[in-house]
């Protein structure tokens, strides 16, 4: 007896469809896990602070980063945090008036890796010459207690000057601030 032609095809289609649905569900389930790739899990409740003090970026002694890169990181981070409007006041590193602030958080950025890259190489090849900087971002209270620590990376892959990597990093820091406070 000959089986109807449509049945096996329908069966295969159902198997493929269910497989695709499982893959999609798995991918969706994995997404929140990727977002929590920091060294510590994000707090359940948002932190509260009226002011933030941004400290200068101090790399370890064996990591040479151009001073312009360090300064651009510091200045860009202050600009981007200001844009979030999460704090009444942003204090700069060394500001003596910050000591009087009762509800202050301190942001420290410690670079852990740096790749100089080349704008010319990037724009000619489009695959080589990326500039990147990896930074450990740490939020502490006045007593030094760590409230949040994350590792972030700023990159410029295709077009733009090398210092644009600091802008990319600053945007990511501001995103963390926005999510945390």
């Amino acid at each position, binding site marked *: 007896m000959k089986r109807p032609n449509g049945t096996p095809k329908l069966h295969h289609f159902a198997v493929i469809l269910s497989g695709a649905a499982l893959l999609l569900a798995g991918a969706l389930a994995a997404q929140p896990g990727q977002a929590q790739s920091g060294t510590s899990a994000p707090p359940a409740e948002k932190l509260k602070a009226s002011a933030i003090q941004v400290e200068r970026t101090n790399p370890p002694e064996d990591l040479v980063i*151009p001073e312009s890169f360090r*300064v651009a990181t510091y200045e860009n981070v202050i600009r981007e945090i200001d844009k979030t409007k999460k704090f009444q006041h942003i204090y700069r590193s060394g500001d003596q008036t910050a000591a009087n602030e009762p509800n202050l958080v301190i942001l420290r950025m410690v670079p852990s890796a740096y790749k100089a890259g080349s704008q010319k190489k990037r724009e000619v090849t489009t695959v080589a010459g990326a500039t990147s900087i990896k930074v450990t971002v740490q939020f502490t209270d006045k007593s030094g207690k760590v409230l949040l620590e994350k590792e972030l990376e700023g990159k410029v892959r295709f077009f733009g000057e090398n210092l644009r990597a600091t802008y990319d990093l600053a945007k990511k820091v501001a995103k963390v601030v926005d999510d945390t406070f």
Partner: protein
Amino acid sequence: MKIARMQVKTTLAHLGVSVFLLSAPVVFSGQDKPAETMTVPDVQCVIGLEGIKPGATGTVSVRGGAIHFEQKDKKAEIAIPAIQDILLGNESRQEITGAGKVATMAIPYGGGRLLSLFSKKVEVMTVEFTDSNGGFHGAIFVFPPGHATEMKGILVAQGAKTTIHLPAPEEPKEQKEQKP
């Protein structure tokens, strides 16, 4: 005998006064000299000046004990006594930027990429300074070649502080990723 001694004393006194008067212009010449000034047009302020948009191009001048950045109606200044450090670096920048850069992307057969090979050398001057509360600021300027070194010399002569730093790796040579 007494008259002779008096004459010797008077002569010595006259001689002393003459020597003092003759040496005075040499001793005080430094105070009369006006502080050196310098003006450089077409300088890009990458970031770090209050009220100036990042990437703005304007004129930088050293006069009246401060660095002035002027861009049409916008002005900013850094007082020389507030400067904590001045750092110089060399970089290369693309000749074509902004809207022109986007236009080059439309050139067929990779012509736009070919244009990316043309770059110019620039000098980057990073000025670190503090505000009245002691807060740290950093301003980055991109100068046409040869001007930043001269400006640093003028600023240091007028009292700007500076320290010796390790030479940073040059931009075109790719540096391997460094990990602690």
